[in-house]
């Protein structure tokens, strides 16, 4: 199997899906000739032409709103917001229209679109280029919010998102775009949306995370297990909403202890929902409070202070120890 980074894996998904299904179109700022500022859509313009790979005017509501029209009209648009920090401009079209068209029209019209956007910190970027605001989307009924963590699942989830009959917000951890490679099969792979993945089975502690926090956390977990012999169950959430809470609560019922690691700000980040679901379905199994490791309730600082505000490996490790020792 060829080894690919996440950008290459996403690009592969595009090439194969657009080859297979000519209703798939790609649009956004600089996604065409330039191949996207992160090169995720590289080569598509030449391969599929400017009618299917559109460099749009600079207007996020316009991109989302026209994509909604295209989706209703029989296409499968995959629109890019250049950074998630600018996606709020497209948010009204998502909340007011994309998320509601199926209900509003009693199923007569549907919006099979994907809205991709790079999110998250750690890349020394300017203001608005480092946020993790998946909550805004996950709190919106009628859409799905998906966050891959590595090249292989990014590719398989993007294919699923494109084929999904509903609007999917596809949050791409930009920090992981080129951070590492994985084997990605040439042959098609599709993962189910709305399902979390237990990547490491364990019995003493459940750790839940997603996106760019996944790999950082995985490294901490693996080192910790090696050094201490503790058995950790690690869950990669993959879909934020609708949430596969059963995978989490089944694990917590087994381990009795849980740490959630999120890059998002604390108040009303996805960890809050995970804790609420554990409360609903597994409270009496808890032997310690669920520990949340998260950004603080501040605007993401400019990059000189960014790393300090995001979860750090040592902090994750301490959270694990404290939860185990509680």
């Amino acid at each position, binding site marked *: 199997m060829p080894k690919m980074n996440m950008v290459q894996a996403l690009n592969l998904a595009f090439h194969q899906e657009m080859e297979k299904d000519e*209703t798939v*179109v790609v649009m956004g700022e600089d996604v065409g000739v330039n191949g996207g500022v992160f090169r995720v859509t590289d080569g598509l313009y030449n391969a599929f032409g400017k*009618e*299917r790979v*559109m460099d*749009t*005017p600079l*207007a996020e*509501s*316009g991109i*989302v*709103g*026209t*994509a*909604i*029209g*295209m*989706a*209703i*009209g*029989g*296409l499968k*648009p995959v629109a890019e917001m250049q950074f998630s920090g600018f996606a709020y401009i497209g948010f*009204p*079209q998502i909340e*007011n*229209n994309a998320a509601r*068209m*199926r*209900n*509003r*029209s*009693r*199923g*007569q*019209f*549907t919006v099979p679109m994907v809205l991709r956007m790079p999110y998250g910190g750690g890349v020394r970027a300017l203001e608005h280029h480092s946020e993790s605001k998946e909550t805004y989307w996950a709190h919106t*009924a*009628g859409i*799905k919010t998906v966050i891959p963590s590595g090249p292989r699942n990014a590719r398989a989830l993007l294919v699923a998102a494109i084929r*999904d*009959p*509903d609007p999917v917000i596809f949050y791409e951890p930009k920090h992981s775009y080129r951070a590492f490679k994985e084997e990605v099969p040439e042959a098609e792979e599709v993962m189910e949306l*709305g399902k979390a993945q237990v990547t490491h089975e364990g019995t003493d502690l459940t750790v839940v995370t997603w996106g760019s926090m996944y790999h950082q956390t995985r490294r901490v977990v693996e080192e910790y297990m090696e050094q201490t012999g503790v058995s950790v169950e690690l869950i990669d959430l993959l879909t934020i909403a*609708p*949430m*596969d*809470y*059963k995978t989490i609560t089944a694990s917590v019922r087994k381990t009795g202890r849980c740490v959630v690691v999120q890059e998002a700000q604390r108040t009303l980040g996805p960890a809050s929902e995970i804790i609420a679901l554990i409360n609903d379905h597994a409270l009496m199994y808890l032997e310690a409070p669920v520990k949340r490791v998260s950004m603080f309730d501040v605007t993401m600082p400019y990059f000189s202070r960014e790393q300090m505000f995001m979860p750090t490996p040592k902090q994750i490790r301490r959270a694990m120890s404290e939860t185990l020792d509680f």
Partner: protein
Amino acid sequence: MPRTKLGPYEVEYLQVLDEAGKLDKDLEPKLSKTDLLKLYRYMKLSRRADERMLKLQRQGRLGTLPVCVGQEASFCGSVLAIRDTDWFVGAYRELGGRLMRGEPIVNTLLYYNGYEEGSYNPNNDRTLPIQVVLGSQTLHAVGLAYASRLRGEKDTVALTILGDGASSEGDFHEAMNFAAVWNTPTVFLVQNNHWAISTPRDIQTKSETFAQKAIAYGVPGIQVDGNDALAVYAATAEAVERARKGGGPTLVEAVTYRMLMHTTADDPSKYRSKEAVEEWQVRDPLARMFNYLKKKKLWTDKQEDQLEAEIKAEIDEAVKAYENFTEGKPDAPFDYVYGEPHYYLEEQREELLEKIRKDAEDA
């Protein structure tokens, strides 16, 4: 050397049949008798349906609703210019236009009584539901037009309707711009009825016309007498024709007037004088069409009476159907969250059903 001028940029103005009933023969659109009578019929149906709904609302039998009285020429005239296979992307103040698209009257009644069951058009799957979020639909019309072209439907167009107020929204700007840059077959019709709830047109924009906003996007713009169904038809038909031939989008401004309240929740006496409204009474689009048809010998008083009776029966029937409507299943909203079920939503559906059961038991 003087400073140089760029332009001049122009937009057009069109009136075919003026308020005194004077017809400009040169500009008269070539409409068949069938089309003319269809146009008139739906203008009338729209008016009568509005009146009935207003009554039902006042009796507490419908929720809050907007009426369209006075604007019939604008939405019926424009919708007459498109085909069933074209896309119609309206707002909410174009009842007669929706009825021309085949929407059953009963659906409108259900809609305004809080049922999703009434918010789609079972007879035409290229008519988008009522859009409450002002201006946002204009972008959908651009996307739909784009999709149709890309999918090889060479001559499908999308007609979108918005209000003068909605034109202030950023989405309208972005829609005009995308349509122009992509050269999509989209026709934008601004129903300038002079009011956005209590906000008069002059607080909405400083430009003399809405039509001239086309210049910002490098596309044709035309202002028409929006109470002149022939002018609205002619301008829209021309724009539709251009769009079908690959000539891109057009902005049409139909100058009309909102004769009644914004919605039944609104009291216009708070913000506008009766005189302002009376000024427009003489420009009534229905009377104008009636006189035109009579002059053309296409219509008689007897036919008029017949039509009124027919329409009354049609509306009566719709009201009956509406009153006999039996509510669908309570958990229906769960059917329209996603196209494929997710267990967590299914659990919540069960919770809802249990809640309803228990609430009834606890009674």
